Every structure is written in structure tokens, then in C-alpha cells.
């Protein structure tokens, strides 16, 4: 069965690439949306809320299928990799925007006023006073969500991305043997179990003492 090990390993590489892309772009976009929302421009906020609600309501697999099978009819044909990246990044963006926004609004109004009255600008207040406190609150829910959505890279199989599950499934059907699938399953555990354990540690570390 070692014959299929290189396939699984190449799947691991694709999964890691995809996961890093999703996490970086998704969280960055979520933070940008939350910061834009804090400017308090009404029509813009409605737009942000609409986009966030949309991607919180739709199952990630539906978004992937929609982009991969739908967009070609509009003349754009993204690859399976790009479709999966885009879809999961949008979903993570929506969830992280909510989480960042909750963090920002949790900082008491008096802190804003105090910071502004010492002469800090809006941007300085946000950067040096509000965000450091907000991040503390956002870390446990954000790590949870990020893990849940990053695991979704396995959904890429449906649109022929050669990540772990895709490689394992095709190796299984080539070899008429479930061992590659077991290897793939083990690869997911090796990849994600340490992250889950680390997240649990972070959760207790940053938990709010009530």
C-alpha cells in the first residue's frame, strides 16, 4: 500500500496550501469588513450585513457547487481549487466579520471617548485601544470557526481538487482496497488534531474570567 503514499502526501500539500490561503484571505477580509462597518456608514453597513448573512446561511458545499458549476455559464471558469478557496474564504470572511464586530462592539463606549479625548485619532483609537481588547475576546470563537471551515477543504473533492480526500478516494478505486482511504483519514488527524488541541489550550488561556 506504500505505493499510494506519495499520492496521499501530494494531497496533504494541496490541503495545506488551500487551508493557508483560506485562513489568510478569509480572516483578513473579515477584519476589513468589520473595520469598514465600524465607520458607521448606513448603506455600506446594510451591504456588509447582507453579504455576511448570505454566507452564514448557505451551506459551504452549495457555495462551492454554485461557483464551480454556475460561473462557467457567465463566461468565467474557475478551477476546482480556486472555487473551493473562494467559497470557503467567503464563508470564513462572513463568520470572522461577525466575530470581529462582536469584539469591537464589546469594548465599552467610555474607552472610545477617553481615547479620543486624549487626542488620539479614530484610527489610532481603533488600533491601539479597541482592537487589542477586541482580539482577546475574538480568539476562542475565531479559532473554533477557523478549524471548522478549514476542515471543509475536504469538500474540494466534489469539484475534483486533488487534496487528501480526493487522492485517497481515487487511490482506493484504483486499488480496490480501503487502505489509501485509511491513510487519508490518518493524514487529516495528523494535520488537524494538534491544531484542535492547541485551540483548546488557547481557549482556556484567553477565556474570560466571569
Amino acid at each position, binding site marked *: 500500500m506504500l505505493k499510494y503514499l506519495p499520492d496521499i502526501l501530494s494531497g496533504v500539500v494541496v490541503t495545506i496550501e488551500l487551508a493557508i490561503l483560506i485562513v489568510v484571505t478569509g480572516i483578513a477580509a473579515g477584519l476589513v469588513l468589520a473595520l469598514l462597518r465600524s465607520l458607521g456608514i448606513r448603506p455600506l453597513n446594510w451591504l456588509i450585513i447582507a453579504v455576511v448573512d448570505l454566507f452564514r446561511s448557505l451551506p459551504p458545499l*452549495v457555495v462551492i457547487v454554485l461557483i464551480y458549476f454556475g460561473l462557467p455559464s457567465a463566461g468565467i471558469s474557475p478551477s476546482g481549487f480556486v472555487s473551493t478557496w473562494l467559497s470557503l474564504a467567503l464563508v470564513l470572511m462572513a463568520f470572522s466579520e461577525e466575530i470581529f464586530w462582536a469584539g469591537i462592539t464589546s469594548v465599552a463606549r467610555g474607552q472610545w471617548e477617553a481615547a479620543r479625548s486624549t487626542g488620539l485619532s479614530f484610527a489610532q483609537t481603533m488600533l491601539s485601544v479597541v482592537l487589542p481588547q477586541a482580539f482577546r475576546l475574538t480568539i476562542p470563537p475565531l479559532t473554533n470557526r477557523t478549524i471548522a471551515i478549514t476542515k471543509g477543504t475536504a469538500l474540494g473533492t466534489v469539484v475534483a481538487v486533488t487534496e487528501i480526500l480526493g487522492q485517497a478516494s481515487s487511490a482506493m478505486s484504483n486499488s480496490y482496497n480501503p487502505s489509501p482511504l485509511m491513510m487519508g483519514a490518518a493524514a487529516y488527524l495528523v494535520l488537524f488534531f494538534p491544531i484542535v488541541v492547541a485551540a483548546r489550550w488557547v481557549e482556556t488561556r484567553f477565556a474570560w474570567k466571569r
Partner: protein
Amino acid sequence: MGRDAVRVEAVSAMIQTFFNPEIIAASWPIVRAGLLNTVLLSLLVVPLGLIGGLILALLASVRQPVIRWALMAWVDFFRAFPPLVLLILLFAGLPFAGLELGGFVCVAIAFFLNTGAYYGEILRAGIDSVPVGQIEAARSTGLSRLQAMTHVVLPQAVRNVLPDLLSNTLEVVKLTALGSVVAVPELLYQARQAQSLTYSPTPIVVAAVIYFLMLWPVVRLLSRLENRALAGR
């Protein structure tokens, strides 16, 4: 004038492709059957996950370090394991062991294991949030351990974590779309069938609209609950 005409034509072409009324009408029976199955599937897997979670949470309330450690490992295992991989393992892996379960049964088992772990974690946090004094008081009035749990601890525990339970339930309903991978004829599966019959993305757009209309009220409600929880700090 000419530019406006081009614009109108482009918009109508978009509608013809992505929201074609004739295709909606033609594929509606297929999509509708999928919607019905998604509702039925959700009505099955949500209670199944809750039961799994309740079992885990009750076991954890025994407050024995060994049991708690074992349960934590169990929960972390399923938090690390993508549900789709679990589903494929059951659906495509078990037949090699001589056990051929249908897609539907595989979905039920995978959800019991995967979403049970998430529900269990939430309910455990809820039970932990009820002060020990409450259990002692209940026990001292003569209630048995089980009675104290069902009448005193659980009602408060559930209330304390209601937003988390609701949020997880939303994720569970969204997760039923995975059934499409193992040929369970739920909404996404049916929409893709209709898509390949009509050569049009319209059915998938319709399915997405249905998911949105179905789940958006829950998302709104959750946003409200989260904001209120923060305001209460």
C-alpha cells in the same frame, strides 16, 4: 439608447441563464422533492446529534478525571476529522469489511458521531455553568442523582447555552448538504440532478435561494442573541 439596449440584453441573458423561469417551472418537482428530504433529514439528524451530545455530556458530568479525559479525546477527534471524510469512510470504506450501508444510514451514523461531539461539548459547558451548590441543594431535598440532573441542572444548563445550541443546529442543517455526495436525494443532490438534465445552473441557484430563505431567519436571530449577550456584559 444603444448602450441601454445592450445593458438590458445583458441582464436578460443573465436571467435566462441563472434564473430561467421555464427551467424553474420544469425542474420544480425535482427540487421540491429535495427540499422535502432536506427537511426530513434535518428532523432526523438534529435529534440524533442532540442525543449523542446528551450522552457525552451526562458521562462527563460524572466528574471522574479518567472519563473526562477520554471524552475530551473523543470530542477532539471528531473536531479534527472532517465530516465528509467520516461519511466517505462509512460509505466507501465499510463495504470492504463486508458491511454495505446505504447513503442514508451512513449520513445518520456520521451525524450522530460528528455533530454529537459538538453538541456534547456545548451541553458539557452548560452543565459546568450550573453551580455545584444547586446539585447539593437538590440532592439534600431527597432528589436522586438522576432527578437532580433532569429537573434542576439540565433545564438551567440548556438555557445558559441556548444560543450555542441554536448556532450548532444551524450548522447541522447546513451540513445535510453533504448527503448529496453519497446520493441521498436531498436539496443539493436533487438540484444537481436537475442541473444535469437541463444543462442550466438555474436549479442550483434555486436551491441556494431556498437554503437562504430557510436559514436566514435563524442567522438573524443568532446575530440578535449574540449582540444581546455582549450588551449584558
